[in-house]
């Protein structure tokens, strides 16, 4: 799908079903479509500054920096105008993506994207939005070790490299978030935004410890807990052997007998994550893979704007 096609249809891709959106084209194209849709629903930032991109002119006022006086207008009209540029961002964001094997799972391949595919598109959209705001965006992908690191850059040309790196990622094996989160410190020397995207099927204590460390360094931390809808409610044959794709741990049970208790357990786990994150100033969002990207972007960027 091209941008024009998306526009022609009149649909906002950020509000469509993620699986349908993914069927419209490649990661880059779809992401642009999503972001276009998303941005049309947003107002531009009213803040103006003396950045590198010209925004408009205004009358000179005493105290203005003479460097920004437009001498050409003064020459032509004999009036003092100063150039006003779009505000230069100081936000540096790092996307930390869990690419463990469990992320490659979907409970309904024909209806719901795998968690990893959903997360890739979500991060791509998020990054594009940030880049368009001149925010530097980087990427760290990990499974049981760090697999990819892309330092944060604010250039639009960085977008292509970002999207290539993201698209090249495939599901790994286990999950070890702590080393990846600690690598963020190396990439974000100033205060910034860390978006941690994972299904959180990992060592919660270690992960929280690393996230708390990032908060301690002054970073705004957003945790996007990616959940497949099929992980919220237990279903399956009358009796089945449920096997963890990462650890191969298995348990035999009858889903009908355990559905209620399992639902309570998931709610409890989500509640524990939410509570633990809130306690440490971390923004936690439960994101199911059938949630339109736009909704998630809005939630996430709301945290980012507050940071900026």
């Amino acid at each position, binding site marked *: 799908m091209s941008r024009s096609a998306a526009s022609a249809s009149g649909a906002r891709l950020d509000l469509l079903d993620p699986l349908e959106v993914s069927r419209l084209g490649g990661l880059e194209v779809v992401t642009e479509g999503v972001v276009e849709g998303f941005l049309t629903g947003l107002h531009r930032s009213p803040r103006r500054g003396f950045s590198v991109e010209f925004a408009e002119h205004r009358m000179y006022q005493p105290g203005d920096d003479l460097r920004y006086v437009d001498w050409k207008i003064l020459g032509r009209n004999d009036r003092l105008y100063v150039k006003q540029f779009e505000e230069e961002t100081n936000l540096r964001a790092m996307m930390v993506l869990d690419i463990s094997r469990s992320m490659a*799972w979907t409970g309904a391949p024909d209806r719901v994207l795998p968690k990893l595919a959903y997360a890739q598109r979500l991060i791509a959209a998020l990054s594009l939005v940030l880049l368009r705001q001149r925010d530097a965006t980087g990427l760290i992908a990990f499974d049981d070790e760090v697999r990819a690191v892309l330092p944060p850059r604010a250039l639009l040309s960085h977008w292509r490299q970002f999207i290539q790196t993201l698209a090249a990622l495939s599901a790994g094996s286990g999950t070890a978030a702590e080393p990846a989160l600690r690598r963020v410190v190396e990439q974000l020397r100033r205060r910034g935004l860390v978006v941690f995207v994972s299904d959180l099927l990992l060592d919660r204590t270690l992960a929280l410890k690393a996230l708390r460390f990032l908060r301690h360094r002054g970073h705004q931390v957003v945790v996007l807990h990616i959940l497949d809808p099929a992980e919220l409610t237990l279903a399956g044959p009358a009796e*089945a*052997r449920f096997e963890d*794709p990462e*650890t191969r*741990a298995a348990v035999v049970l009858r889903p009908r007998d*355990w559905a209620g*208790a399992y639902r309570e357990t998931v709610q409890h786990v989500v509640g524990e994550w939410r509570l633990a994150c809130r306690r440490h100033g971390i923004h936690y969002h439960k994101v199911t893979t059938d949630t339109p990207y736009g909704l998630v972007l809005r939630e996430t960027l709301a945290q980012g704007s507050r940071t900026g």
Partner: protein
Amino acid sequence: MIGFLHPWALLGLGAAAIPILLHLLARREPPTVVFPAVRYLITTTQEHRRRLKLQNLLLLLVRTLLVIVLVLAAAGPQVPLSGVPGHAPSALVLVVDNSPSSATVDGGSARLGHLVAAGREVLERATPNDALWLLTADGVPLRGDVGQLGDQLRELQVSARRMDLGEALRLAGEVLGTQARPGEIVLLTDLQASAVSAAEVAVPLVVGRPSAPPPPNAGISLLDTGAQPWSGEGGRVVVALAGDSGTAVPVSARIGDRGARQALAHVGGAATIMLPAVSPGWWTVEAELAADELRLDDRRVGAVRVAPVARLGWDSTSRFVATAAGVLEANRRIVRGAEVSFGTLAQGTSIVSPPADAAEVGALNRALAARGVAWGYGALTLDPAFTDSGPVVGRTRVMRRYRLQPSGSGRTGVLATVAGDPWLVRSGDVLLLGSRLDPEWTDLPVSTDFMPFMDLLVNRLARGEVTLADGAPGDPVPLPDQVTRVRQGEREWPVEGGGFFRPPDLGAYYLLVADDTVGAIAANVDPRESLLAPAPDDQVRQLWQEARVVEPAEAGDLVFSAGALGDLRGPLLWAALGLFLLELVLATLWRRVR
């Protein structure tokens, strides 16, 4: 025992394995489902697995029970139950205690009347398919249908015979033992403690007995006419009383049709009454009490032989015989004469003891044979032995004795034995003693039994008379060898000598050899019948494990409990419904909880 209308349906019990099989089959290797959030499942199951396991087991149990109950209901189970209408064909022995004590008047009528009424109620519960017996004090189980046994009951009279209840139950058990159908016994009795004895009762037993205490009673337990025969000067009788009445009661006694003599006696005590002289012969003596609630034990009879005392000649060389004869003479139990000769074989009646010198035995045997005596002396035995206790002599040690040998076929006339061997025999008018009446031969001369033995020997045995016998109606009384008939008033019974005679009623019976009266039997109520105190219910239950003790009128409600069948299909179907609802509730509830 449980029975089934459709036993083939029990094959369906195999279906009870279905839930278990399903459970086991379901436990086969299930399909593998890749699921990232297994850690959540593990957390969940760790918390609930034990509870779920219990729930599953309970559900499995309920479902299995449901199948079993349904199959059992289809098989139509029937179990013996009391108080349900109808019963399976059964065998019943109705034991009605019409012993003398049942004549006790209680509440204006004899207790037997209450027992008979209760017995008829029991019979009314029977069906034509039941096998019924009636057992009374006569000890003969009588089989019949409801009508026949009802008639028997209606005509049932108080028997003079005692009824041992344990014996009656054993007999009833033997009768039922021949029956394949479920059996039971109903015993209707006044439950005298003296009549209760242990018995193994293998079938249900209902004991109907009046719970009201019996009235006070006094009865004659003994009429002792003393040593026989009486002389022409009259004699005395001792009348002993038994029962539970504490007051002194007047006792009267008479001989023949002479006037009665009276005395006072207490229960547990005795009164001695002198009776007037009568002519020689056999006389009936009667003792009687004032009437009370039980009349049968208020009269007792005895027989007395009145005759001149024996005119005895004895061998004065035998010191102990001579001393005893002197004592008897001094007491006017004998006079010196030649009617009976003691010690040697004489022309008339002779009581022969073996000679001291063994060399004379051969001559004595030849003389006995020449006299036509059917017995002779055999070998001398020096092995100490004891006389076999009997009416003639009690248990006494015998150190030396000659074996008495019959000369012809058979051995009639044995009066006493030692270790089974004849020791005192009679043949015609000759009595042979196996031992000399000397302490070197036997302890008898130095025992207290010696004087009664001598009196008996010279006054009765030597004169061809037998011991007077006492017995209760129906009890077997041994008869002397020569007896051919038994007579009571105008009634006569031909008998076989050496056999037994069972007196059918109360009264005195005379034993005849040809036309001579040689003895008598006094048939009286068993003295234990005077003791009306009932056995405690606990003792009854202890002795007869299966017994249920109730009022006689309640026996009918409990009868045929062994054959009474309750249809369990209804309760089983209700149970199945209950189990089904339980399964439904549990499964739904637990599913919601999960």
